[in-house]
Structure formats: C-alpha cells, structure tokens
C-alpha cells in the first residue's frame, strides 16, 4: 500500500450477509465467516491473501484464472478458493509446495503472452498481474516469445478517457462481468474462442459501441489493458482523498487520486454508501472543468453590463457589492434585493447565503434552483407525509418487488442508481414505466418493463388517479395499513373521489391516451406484486400540476401500504448533487433550515437568539417572483450563487429582461456563464475539489466533501460570504466549515446529531440524525409518519393552460442526457462533447415526415414564448405529437421556447409541456443571432492598458 492512499481491502469475492456463521480452519487458524462466503474471502478476512487474478470483491466469483487454488482436507484436487464456499469443519491450506508450483505454472503461461515492459507501463506499481508474479515467485518464463501471441494487437484509443490495449489483456473477464453485473449495459463481450479470445465492444470501437463510459471495466481491470488516459499521461497518483461527486443527486463517493494538488483520476469509493464503488461517465471522468482555462480566478467588476469587465481585488469587489446593495435598499426598500442559492454548493455555503439574506439583507428573499426542479417534492411530501424528502436509501431497491419509474430517466439522469435498479430487475423485480418517451429502461439488455404507460405529456395526475381508481374499486387497498397509519377520514374522502367514474381508466383515456386495460394491469401489479417502490423525477414535478402529482404518488403508496419499510417508498431522484441539502438548509423564502416556516415564532426565536437580529416573519420572493418584480422595477439587486438562470430558467427573454432591469447583479460562479452577461460583479467560485463541506444526496445522505486543492481564486466561497456580511455590517465568525455545520446542527432538529467528527467516523449519515437516531435514518416513517397520520389529498386532474392548437400543434418536453449535465457549464468543458456536442430535437418519424424533416436538418422550433433553430433527429423514442430536446448548450437557447406557466403550489416551471411548431429552416433565430453578438459584447474584458479584449475572438 502506497503511503497517503486510502486502504480498501479487496476480499476477492463478496462477503455474504447473513446471521449464520461457519467455523473452519485456514492455514491452522480457526476462523468464522458468514455462510456462503468463499474460502478466498474467509482467508482474506484472516489476512491471508490467496493469489488471484480473475477475482475481485465487487464481482461474483468466476473461477477462470486458476491461480487461487487451495487444498482442502478430504477433497480431491485443488479447488478454486473463489468459487468454493466455506463449510463447517473445513480445513484449508492456502500455501503448500504443490500449490506454489501450480500457481507458478499458471503465471508462467500468463506472462508468456504479456509484454515485459513493466518499467514503462502506465500501471507500473498498480498492476495485479505484476503483484501476482511477485507473490508466486515467478522467476523464469520458459516458453520464449517466438510463438503465437497478442503482443502486436492494435490499441483502441477511441474513448476520450481510457485506452484499451489488448496486448496486455489476460482475458480474465473482469471487465465483461463489471459491464454486465455492475453497470448492466452488456456492452462488452469476449469475441473468439481459446487463444483467439479477445475483449470486444461489440463489432466496433469503444467510442461507437454501446459502452456508456461508466469506468466499471477500467476499475475492474487487473492490468493496464483498460486504463485511464490521465494515468498514462501523468503517471501513478501519490495520495488519495475521499470526497463526493458534484454532479447528480446520487452523490457518489470517490477517491480523488492526486499528485500533489493535481488530480490524476477519480476512483469510485467502494465504501461510499450511495454508490458502493460504481460511477458514471461524469463523476468518473468529467472533472477536467475544474482546472479549465475558462475558470475565472479573479473578481471582476463593471459599472454597466455593456462595459468591459475589469479585474478587481476581493476587497474592492466585496465593497462594491455592499455599497450597491445598501444604496439599492435605501432607495427602493429593504425588500428590493435578494439571493439565489445553488444546489451545486455545499450545505455550509448555502446555509451562509440564506443567513446573509435573512440576517444582513433583513428580508427573506432567498430562493434556490430547486425552485425549478423539485420544489413540488418539498410541498407534496411535506403535506402528505410530513417531511420534504424521499423515504428510502438507494439500497432499499434491492428489496423491491415492483418498481414504478415515473417521469424519470435514471439511466441518463441518475446512472449509478439506474445500475442498481437494473440489477434488481435482472433478479426478477417487475418494472412499470410511466413516461411519454420510451426511455432506455423500457427495453434494454435483460431488462424489460412489464408495462410502459406512454402517456401524453401533462396528464400525470389523470393517469395516477386512474391507477388509484383501480386500486380502490377493485378492493386492492391495504386497509389494515391505512387504518393504523393514515388519517382515515381523509382517506375516505380520497377513496370516494378516485372511485368516481371520471377517474376510471376508461374515462381518463381521453386525456392520457393510455389503454384502460394497461392501466388496470399496472395498478394490479403495483398493489399486489409485493414490495412496491416508486421513483420519480422532473417529469413529475415540472408541470402546472407538479405538486398534485407528487401528492397523487404519495396517495398511491399509502393506499397500498408501501411506506415505512425497506423495498418500498416514494423516492424523488434529485437532479443536482445538493438539491436535497440546499432545500434542507433553509434556501426557500418561506422556511428556515429544517423546513420550519418563518412565521413559526418558536423557530424564528431560536434563529434570532443565535444570530442576534430580528428576523422577518413574512415569506420572501421566489425566483420567478423576483424576476417579475424586477421587470416591474421593484426588485433591483440579486446575488446569484453558482446558478445560471439565464440559461436554465424558463422563458429566457423574461429572465434576461428581469436581470437587465436590475442595478446590481452579482454572480458567484466558476465561469462567465449566461447570467454573468447581465452581472455587474463577478466573484470567482470554487469547484468541488477546492471545497470543504458536505453535500446531501437524494436519499438524505450527508456526505463529506473534502478539499484536495486550494481554491484557485484564493478565497473559499464561505469566506467570501463572511466578508460580504461584514461589509454590510453583520458580523459572521467561522474558522472552518465544520463550525458552520455545528451551527446548522444547533438550529436544525433533523441535523442535531451531525458533526464532521461523526461523518468522518461513520462515512455518512442520513438525516434525521439526532438523539432519537444518532446514526441517522435510512428509512423514514417506519412506525408513524413524521406528521403523525399520513394525509391523503384529493388530486383533481386539471389540464394545463398550455394547449396545442393549429399554430403550435406539437408538445415539447425537455430534459438531460447521460454525458452532459444541466446547463453544461461543467461537462461542456470536458471531453464529454465526444458524445453530445449540440442540443438536438428528437421528433417522431410521423411528425418528421409531415414536415419533410430528415435527421440532421436544421429546424425552427417555435412557441408562444420564442423561437430557436437546432438540428433534428428522427427518433421512435418519441410518440407522435411530442418532441424533445435538452438544454445543455447556451447557443441553442432551449428555454427561449419554454413558457412561464408553473406549478400551482410552488411556481416550479412547466418545462415538460410547451406547445410548439417545427418547420425546416436554413437560418438561426433572431434570438440566437442576438445571443451570439451578446456572447461577445457582454463578456468583454478590459486589458490593463485599456484596450478591449474580445474574449470570444481570442478563442
């Protein structure tokens, strides 16, 4: 083990869970191991490492390398220890002369077809083949190199992140098995037989294959056959630090493997509870943005947004913000400024921003980007269950019998969870997909949905009411559960409502487009198929009835008794790494941390005492309200933490009109993003590699984020917030983010037991973590709901006001794909562009033919809000009448087209339903042309000598 590296013991095969223990003797030492555990793993638990090549703890035993042979008293031959389970009374010998000779013979054969270039090999020092040659004492290879071999086989360098060198392959199948068992993509195979056996990514190269670049094969490879190009370039890392990925809400743990302060690779951490050693292409490989040349490392200021940016000191920039905000409040009133917190920042950073607003700005005008994604989750689950969070841990899906995926595309949006889900589905759990698109889960290798309810966009509530109708009218309600756990009067009202004929599958078919028989079958399966778990995403929340849909989901789960134990639950798949945390931390304008309303006198009193100020007891502005007020010239100053509302929020022209009407917009970010075009002060932020703090993932898991390099801007974000608070006359004092967490714990009952010491000791905890649950809470609502009795809500279907018609006959839905992430600020600055370098419009062949559109054509996409042009891709994933695009590229401007319609309860935008028309075109839209000009005119930098530097031209 290299010094500075985090030790991860590999037992060779999985340690089986179970109460039954087996006692045996290994090399004269009596030991016990769980029944079903392999002899290899039992030996490793004793510290006796049996030589092996094809075995690793993350994969089921395979028994192909013949290196792990052992002797067992009373048995003939030398069985493979990886495939031999422990038995009571077994006497095992792992090291004998006979075994040593056999192992040397096996190694000799491997090495006879392996290049002897260890000193110049990228895996030198981190190669299991090299280790095993040493372990078995191989001193000679008698076969020479003149015979047939694979040493001249061509490398496949097509993947931007890893290389495949078949000359170094020992055909141990670890990569193939990782692709199948861990990732579940089945992209790799072994082509040929015997000597000709070679790893193949189908009939093409890695880049063009089905491979999703999750890195599981690279992680599993015991040699340099599959290896990160960063390791080839830079060499072996010298230290590692466990931290948390800053992409999606799965919150994978990684070891940042470093040379000094330079990342060599991000290796998924096996003891990370969210990912258990797995990863996706973003977290595993797409981290290069952190040191990209576009990073802004110095504060920037300008008088007007049409002025060029000028570099400033931190002191100057902070003083400028404080002066402008103070002036604006004096001129326009205390409520004329506010802030937006970021779900990409740590809990501690977010907590400080909302404290800055409430204590130093003196109002509650703080909101977060969860406004535009999962705010309906907060409202819906708090109303029905009593708390604004998912009910399970990810591992719970291992015990699900029926999984319902609604409005989510986990293989693209939450790939590491999707792999876990697919594993469960391959083991026999049934799947119901409710989605307008034929997402990959509907049919992929060894996974096929029992039902795909391909409903029309905007009809989720009608579909869920129809499912509930079947459950109620066919007597499938878990009455004992409802009687014991739920408010029965509310249940009865709800049951009467869903039993109405208008909610039957037959009647709702006119809205949903779903065949009644399919809906009835899916309802019966969910209600009677055993443990039923629901997972959902933004296809649920980003609707005018987003909150209603969340409550309809909660109703279904309560009616069937699917809340409060492992294998069941209601689980929002959070889009960003810290959406859950940013909401927990009091980012919403009506709530303190821990979801307590600002009008709650007891809660407010606690904060006032701790913070030493009087706090406002009225809710503040949400993001859309801020922009509306800005357009009305009543909201004039905004602090934007790590968010790009000019690209991500709906109805771009309304957003930018609001921003342009403000007198001081401050953007704290890594890059000069779209919002920064409208900013007067830019404060350089820190990437996750530069942060100390915590993220909270979709399963309420609080994970540590550990700094592996100093902030490139010379100041951590939390320090900048403290400086700004002080400049505004409000004192904040923290020496380290751990002290901010201590304050969070003191003020937030669900975090009362959280500290950095505990996180370091346990690895992570899921809130609530307090005196009642000192090590956290994997499953919520076990004996009772947080609110007491579960509350059924009546969920009448109300069609959205956004209607199709002759001018706009199609429905646009938007979303994201695997290789890019949200506004793309991070992933566009990596090699992930190899898979997706522009937003495209997916359109059904029928709609395409009607319009004479072919794949690759430039098409105009127009709605009542605006028009853009982009390339079309004909796709049968779409249903006729529905088109789809992503919003990863600012030049496309997908949100120019989306509208300002929003969820009734939370104002979460209705991204998923926009009436549009599509036609062929040969030009980009007026907005796109204007935006291209503004990319230059609003991003200019002033050089020291006063000349203009056109950044775009320089590039």
């Amino acid at each position: 083990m290299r010094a500075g590296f985090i030790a991860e013991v590999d037992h060779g095969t999985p340690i089986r869970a179970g109460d039954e223990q087996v006692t045996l003797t290994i090399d004269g030492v009596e030991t016990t191991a769980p029944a079903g555990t392999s002899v290899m793993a039992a030996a490793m638990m004793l510290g006796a490492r049996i030589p092996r090549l094809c075995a690793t703890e993350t994969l089921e035993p395979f028994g192909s390398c013949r290196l792990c042979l052992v002797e067992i008293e009373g048995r003939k031959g030398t069985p493979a220890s990886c495939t031999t389970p422990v038995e009571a009374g077994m006497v095992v010998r792992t090291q004998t002369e006979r075994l040593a000779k056999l192992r040397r013979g096996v190694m000799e054969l491997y090495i006879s077809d392996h290049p002897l270039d260890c000193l110049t090999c990228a895996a030198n020092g981190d190669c299991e083949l090299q280790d095993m040659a040493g372990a078995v004492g191989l001193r000679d290879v008698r076969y020479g190199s003149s015979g047939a071999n694979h040493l001249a086989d061509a490398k496949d360098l097509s993947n931007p992140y890893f290389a495949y060198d078949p000359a170094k392959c020992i055909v141990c199948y670890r990569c193939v098995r990782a692709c199948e068992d861990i990732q579940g993509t089945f992209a790799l195979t072994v082509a040929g037989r015997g000597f000709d056996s070679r790893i193949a990514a189908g009939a093409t190269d890695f880049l063009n294959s089905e491979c999703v670049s999750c890195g599981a094969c690279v992680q599993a490879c015991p040699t340099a056959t599959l290896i990160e190009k960063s390791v080839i370039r830079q060499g072996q890392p010298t230290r590692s630090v466990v931290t948390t990925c800053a992409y999606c809400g799965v919150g994978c743990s990684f070891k940042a493997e470093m040379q000094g302060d330079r990342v060599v690779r991000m290796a998924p951490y096996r003891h990370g509870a969210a990912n258990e050693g797995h990863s996706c292409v973003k977290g595993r490989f797409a981290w290069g943005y952190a040191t990209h040349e576009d990073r802004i490392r110095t504060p920037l200021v300008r008088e007007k947004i049409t002025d060029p940016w000028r570099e400033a000191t931190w002191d100057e920039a902070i003083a400028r913000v404080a002066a402008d905000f103070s002036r604006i409040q004096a001129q326009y009133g205390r409520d004329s400024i506010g802030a937006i917190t970021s779900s990409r920042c740590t809990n501690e950073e977010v907590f400080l921003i909302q404290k800055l607003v409430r204590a130093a700005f003196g109002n509650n005008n703080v909101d977060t980007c969860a406004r535009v994604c999962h705010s309906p989750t907060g409202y819906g689950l708090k109303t029905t269950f009593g708390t604004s969070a998912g009910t399970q841990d990810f591992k719970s899906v291992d015990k699900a019998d029926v999984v319902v995926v609604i409005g989510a595309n986990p293989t693209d949006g939450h790939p590491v969870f999707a792999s876990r889900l697919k594993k469960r589905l391959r083991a026999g759990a049934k799947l119901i997909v409710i989605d307008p698109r034929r997402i990959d889960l509907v049919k992929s290798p060894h996974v096929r949905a029992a039902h795909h309810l391909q409903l029309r966009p905007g009809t989720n509530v009608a579909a869920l009411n129809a499912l509930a109708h079947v459950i109620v009218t066919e007597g499938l309600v878990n009455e004992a559960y409802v009687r014991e756990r739920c408010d029965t009067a509310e249940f009865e009202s709800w049951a009467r409502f869903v039993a109405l004929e208008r909610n039957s599958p037959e009647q709702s078919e006119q809205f949903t487009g779903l065949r009644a028989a399919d809906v009835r079958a899916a309802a019966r399966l969910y209600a009677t198929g055993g443990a039923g778990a629901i997972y959902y995403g933004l296809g649920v929340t980003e609707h005018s009835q987003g909150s209603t849909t969340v409550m309809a989901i909660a109703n279904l789960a309560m009616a069937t008794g699917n809340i409060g134990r492992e294998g069941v639950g209601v689980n929002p798949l959070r889009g960003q790494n810290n959406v859950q945390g940013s909401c927990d931390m009091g980012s919403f304008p009506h709530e303190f941390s821990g979801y307590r309303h600002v009008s709650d006198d007891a809660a407010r009193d606690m904060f006032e005492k701790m913070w030493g100020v009087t706090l406002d007891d009225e809710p503040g502005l949400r993001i859309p309200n801020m922009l509306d007020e800005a357009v009305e010239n009543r909201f004039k100053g905004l602090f934007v933490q790590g968010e790009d509302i000019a690209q991500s929020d709906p109805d771009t022209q309304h957003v930018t009109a609001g921003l342009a009407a403000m007198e001081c917009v401050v953007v704290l970010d890594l890059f000069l993003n779209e919002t920064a075009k409208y900013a007067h002060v830019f404060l350089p932020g820190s990437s996750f590699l530069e942060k100390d703090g915590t993220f909270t993932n979709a399963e309420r898991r609080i994970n540590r984020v550990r700094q592996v390099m100093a902030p490139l801007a010379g100041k951590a974000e939390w320090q900048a917030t403290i400086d700004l608070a002080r400049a505004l006359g409000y004192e904040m004092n923290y020496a380290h983010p751990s002290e901010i967490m201590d304050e969070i714990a003191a003020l937030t009952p669900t975090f009362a037991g959280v500290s950095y010491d505990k996180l370091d000791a346990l690895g992570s905890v899921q809130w609530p973590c307090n005196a009642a649950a000192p090590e956290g809470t994997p499953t919520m609502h076990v004996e009772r709901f947080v609110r007491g009795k579960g509350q059924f809500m009546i969920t009448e279907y109300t069609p959205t006001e956004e209607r199709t018609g002759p001018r706009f006959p199609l429905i646009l839905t938007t979303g994201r794909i695997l290789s890019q992430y949200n506004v793309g600020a991070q992933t566009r600055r990596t090699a992930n562009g190899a898979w997706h370098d522009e937003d495209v419009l997916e359109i059904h062949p029928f709609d395409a033919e009607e319009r004479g559109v072919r794949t690759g054509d430039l098409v105009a996409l127009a709605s009542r809000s605006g028009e853009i042009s982009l390339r079309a891709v004909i796709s049968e994933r779409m249903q006729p009448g529905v088109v789809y695009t992503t919003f990863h590229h600012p030049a496309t401007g997908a949100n120019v087209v989306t509208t300002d319609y929003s969820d009734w309860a939370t104002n979460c935008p209705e991204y998923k339903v926009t009436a549009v028309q599509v036609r062929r075109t040969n030009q980009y839209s007026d907005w796109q042309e204007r935006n291209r000009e503004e990319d230059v005119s609003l991003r200019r930098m002033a050089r020291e000598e006063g000349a203009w530097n056109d950044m775009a031209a320089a590039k």
Partner: protein
Amino acid sequence: MSGVAQNNRAKLARMAHQIADFFRAYPQDEASRAIADHINHFWTPRMRADFLAGPAPDDPLLKGAAPLIKPGRADRAPA
C-alpha cells in the same frame, strides 16, 4: 411572445386561480380557507397586496378566500 410585457397583477390572478383549481375538490369553506392559507404561507406581503388591489375575483372560492388573505405592508426601510 415573451413574458416581458406581462402584467404582474394578471399573473398573480392566474396563480390564485390555479391554487383555487386545486382546492376546488374540497368543500367550499374548507377550500377558501386553504387557498388563503396557501397564499399567506407562500406569497410576500407585496404580492398579496397587489392581488388584493386587483379586480375582485369572480371565482366563488377566491371570493371566500380574499377576506382571509393577510393584507400587505408598507415598503420597509433598510434594517
């Protein structure tokens, strides 16, 4: 067209109607109380004042809710 020219008051009226649509499934008194609670819970004083200063709603649920909506407050000076 974009929302640039949107009338804030009209938007608030639309939002109130959306809230009313959700609670329409409940008995009228309960619905009106719930609508008012929701608006008091999530709308700023100024939003409430703007809404209440607008045309009186025709919707019976909103009519019932209006007297229960907390009034706004005057613009506040900096703390």
